[in-house]
């Protein structure tokens, strides 16, 4: 019976380790892709805003989520990534609605925003899977309430959108870095643990 238990546990551990590696790898790849797409999206955004578009992105705006990942433990870091991503979605939606009023329906910016937003949601799902694969019995913390900016004029809308995108790009950069770190930390450690077991 002991032998059987040993075999069974090892199989599960190996499977979980592989799943961990896949999840973090996929998350990492997608974050890089989104990071690359965010560059193009910001270019498209600037090109769509008319004159002084460079100026819009240099203005600071309140109520935009923090791009920095917090937490010391892997679980905290992953949860922080997830909640930060979640925090941005209402802002994407808000920016999209604002730009829908400002752009023609055929504007490539709108389709790019939609695609980018959907890709970001996919990344959040992957992070969720990654977290669940590591901590199956620990629920992800809910994100805090989202504070959207008050009614804005057109200039403020343009500035706001650019800041959101730039901040999210920064978040993606941080996410990629953290995921690389987590990949080596978590998945390798779990392999070690399983071997010991």
């Amino acid at each position, binding site marked *: 019976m002991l032998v059987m238990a040993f075999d069974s546990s090892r199989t599960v551990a190996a499977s979980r380790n592989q799943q961990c590696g896949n999840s973090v790898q*996929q998350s990492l*790849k997608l974050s890089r*892709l989104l990071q*690359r797409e965010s560059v193009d999206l910001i270019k498209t955004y600037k090109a769509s805003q008319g004159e002084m578009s460079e100026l819009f992105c240099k203005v600071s705006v309140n109520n935009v989520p923090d791009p920095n990942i917090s937490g010391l433990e892997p679980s905290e870091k992953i949860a922080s990534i997830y909640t930060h991503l979640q925090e941005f979605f209402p802002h994407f939606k808000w920016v999209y609605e604002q730009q829908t009023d400002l752009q023609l329906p055929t504007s490539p910016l709108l389709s790019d925003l939609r695609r980018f937003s959907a890709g970001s949601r*996919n990344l959040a*799902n992957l992070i969720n899977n990654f977290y669940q694969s590591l901590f199956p019995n620990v629920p992800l913390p809910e994100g805090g309430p989202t504070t959207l900016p008050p009614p804005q004029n057109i200039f403020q809308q343009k500035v706001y959108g650019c800041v959101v995108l730039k901040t999210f790009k920064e978040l993606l950069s941080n996410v990629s870095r953290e995921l690389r770190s987590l990949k080596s930390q978590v998945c390798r450690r779990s392999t070690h643990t399983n071997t010991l077991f």
Partner: protein
Amino acid sequence: MFSSRNYSVSTEGTHAQVDFVDSYPHHMNLEVWVEAHNKLGKIESERITQDANSFLKTNPPSDIKVISEKGFPTSLLMLWTHPIEKYYGKLIYEIRFCAIGSPNWTYVSTATDIQSFRLQSLQPYTEYITQKLAQAKEENLDMHQTTQYLEIGSNFKATCMIINTTEVTADDLYWILSETTVSKELYTKLNESAISVTIPITSVQSEWLFCRAKEKSSYVVLNAGKFMYGVLLKKGYPPGKPENVSCVAVQEKTVISSTFSCEWATVGGQTSDVPTKYTLNQSELQCSTEGTHAQVDFVDTYPHYMNLEVWVEAHNKLGKIESERITQDANSQKNPPSDIKVISEKDFPTSPLMNWTQPIEKYYGKLIYEIRFCAIGSPNWTYVPKEDTATDIQSFRLQSLQPYTEYITQVRCQLGYWSEWSDNTTTKTAEDRPTSKPDVWRTIAEVDGKNERRVLFISKDPVFANGRIITFDIKIQEQKNDSLQWDRILVNGSESSDGQRVITVLKDMLLADLRPVRLYITATNSVGKSPMASLLISAKGQVPPVKGLKVWSAEGKLWLKWTPPTVQMCPSMLWSGSVGIRPIGRGKTKTPGSLPLKGFVRYTVSVYSIYSGQIGKPASKEAYLKEGAPLEGPVVRLNDKPGRNQAELGWVEIPLHRRRGFIINYTINYTGGGETHEITVPGNTTSYTLKSLSSNTKYDTWINASTVRGSAQSSTHSFTTLKYAPGEVESIVVGVSLGFLFVVLMTMLLCVYKKDAETPKENCLSGISVLDVDVCDGKILFEEDKACLPLKKDKYLSEEHSSGIGGSSCMSSPRQSVSDSDEGSDMADTTASTVQYSSVVASNGYKGQTPNPHPQQAVFSRSESTQPLLDSEENPDMMIQEGSRQSQRFKQQNPAEIHLLEMDQQQQQQQQQEEGWSLDFCPLEEESEQMNPSEVNMIQNVSSHHSRCLCYCVLQRPLVEGSFVIRSATHNAFQSLSSFGNSRNNLHG
């Protein structure tokens, strides 16, 4: 009705439900039972078999209105709406009501399909509560029509029950399938009110199955609809499990499309009655189709790096089944790489460099590439090993290519799926020095009268020329120690457009038969020289051919067999006509040809023995790969005029391309006088003389040419044999004449003797005197003959004179020429442009003798004249052959021969004089003075039965403008006489 389908569901409780596929089985017989089972066993409940509609529970009637009518204070009118269409069954209703506050309901049952009812015996002015219950109820055998979907290959069991009637029993029921009564043997009587039938489902077509009752009473007849039940049987196959599900998302511009397309393979068949639908499932996305491919659209973006689970569900009326589920990273198909450039570098003639642009950002995934290339015109691609290009590269150096060759290159990439191949990129590699020897050839022709050969050296560019050949350097060495200079031959070479190697003529030289030489040659392009090739021309006659060459066809090939010459033979070559050359291995003495030969074509096969640097004489044989019957027969003709009893047939060989085999024999068939004869002659014969023919008979003849595979018949040629043999009539006449002459002479001799014996008589003596004068006075006789010659001013209409057109003959046609002219010069003036000369030559006419019993055989050789033709010319049939013969004879007479003939005839004259014949020369005195000094000597042998004088007439005729053009009856004769005229002209020029 009973459905053969089974449904089961397990539960631990005391109730369960099953879900029928798509629809409730109305009017089907349902057999229901419950099985209790645990680890210790199982047991079934009683089985309930009922019509499915007996299980129906409808909604209660709706829109119920109760109307209080003034005229009916104790009645209330109730109105309602059926809860379900009446087609599901006949509804019966139950109504209950009670006064408000009363604890008891009063029930009213209504047995008919009504939608209104009047409650009765109520208390006036009292509030009532009414409720209505609806129940579906089956008719006896109602005319309901339902549809049942059945699996082909299964058995369908149907049960017909009689309900609520005693008019018929189970014995009165019968089944009709597709308007045909089902055999009673297939019925099963369940009880007095139910029978069942089992029908195998085989065909695809849908069918109606009816249960009907015999019309045994008027009630049944009047209510036929109630005693009939029908069901439409639709047939099909249960869905097959979809296989080979594959999905792809393609690149659009710089991103991946959010459209996700999948395709799959269907399994099993389907019918039009039971079509199968497929639903593509991707997590929450679905798309249904009846085909084998579908696509779903992801919201906004393609789910890069997300795990996708994809499966296809096939479903129809007979069930549903899912494919295997695909769970993997989202694949996508990228565009092929773009902007492909292949750079040909001078320093790397075999290794051009490829560059390209990746089709999509690397963030979408790691791309791997595959490269293939081929030389233009080559049907096969060469693939670069994948391991060399399985990295994220954008350039690659191809290797081991041929220099100076155009290549097509293509690239594709993979990220999930392989992209399409890129468009062709064509590049020519750089030049390199030739890496193979030029191919050098020679032809040798004999030179007449000299012990030399004419040798022509030619060369083909090297196979691996690796560039455009600019020059050939050659050196011809007679001995090993010769150190000759190299000759440079420039090639004004345009490259061959059809890919064939260019052939260059190197040198044309005369070579002594016993002088061997060796040619050395190199080819040069812009980069460098080729390796040196050499060719030895050995002394003539030193190298023997192979012996005993045999050629035969077998197994669709030409086989060769030979005996090697005594000298050790090196690899030899097979040359087959103009088809090609095939080398044969050293020491082989038998080999099949592998060249693309055709049947029915005559090939000349030659085997050359190749010695060390020398080529032996060829041994050649003709052969067919496959023989057939000739496509046409030979052309038959007569070689000469038919005789009285024989005719010489000749025929022309069938053209080679129509012969299709070796002619082994000819079969000559001829028919005449009702008899058919057949003669076979060898295949190398082209003429045959038919003998023992009947005179004056028409013969038809034809020839069959035969090969080993069959024969072909010529067209029929007809001829008629002569009534008399040539000379036969003449012999008779001469014989009779001689006989007559003999009699006259004898008579005269008798007279002489008698005169000697008695007194001579004047009459006889005068006759002898005339004869003496004729015989002895040749001069006088010649004067007379001369007077008969043409071209006289007195228009002497001699029967022997010429046509007068210009030429003349002592033995002319007995007819007068219409073109006689008094003045030779006038004639020349008037006909100088078109008329030069014409001659009429009689071969053996008798001077002054008319009529001639036979047509005189004469030839008319005539210039191109506008003058009317002679009668003889107008009837060439009479003269043509003999005339030709005459012409030939004249043609062969050159001046020297003529003089010989003259001498011979002088001798003959002398001989005749010795024999007592008058033999005179007839000098032209007066007449000759009027002739042109330029003479044409013609010799005429004239004999007359009057004088028996042999005359040699020498005529001198002027040549008009120095030419001598004579038109004859035949072309050959024209040529011959022209030659003759020229000879004469030369003779007297």
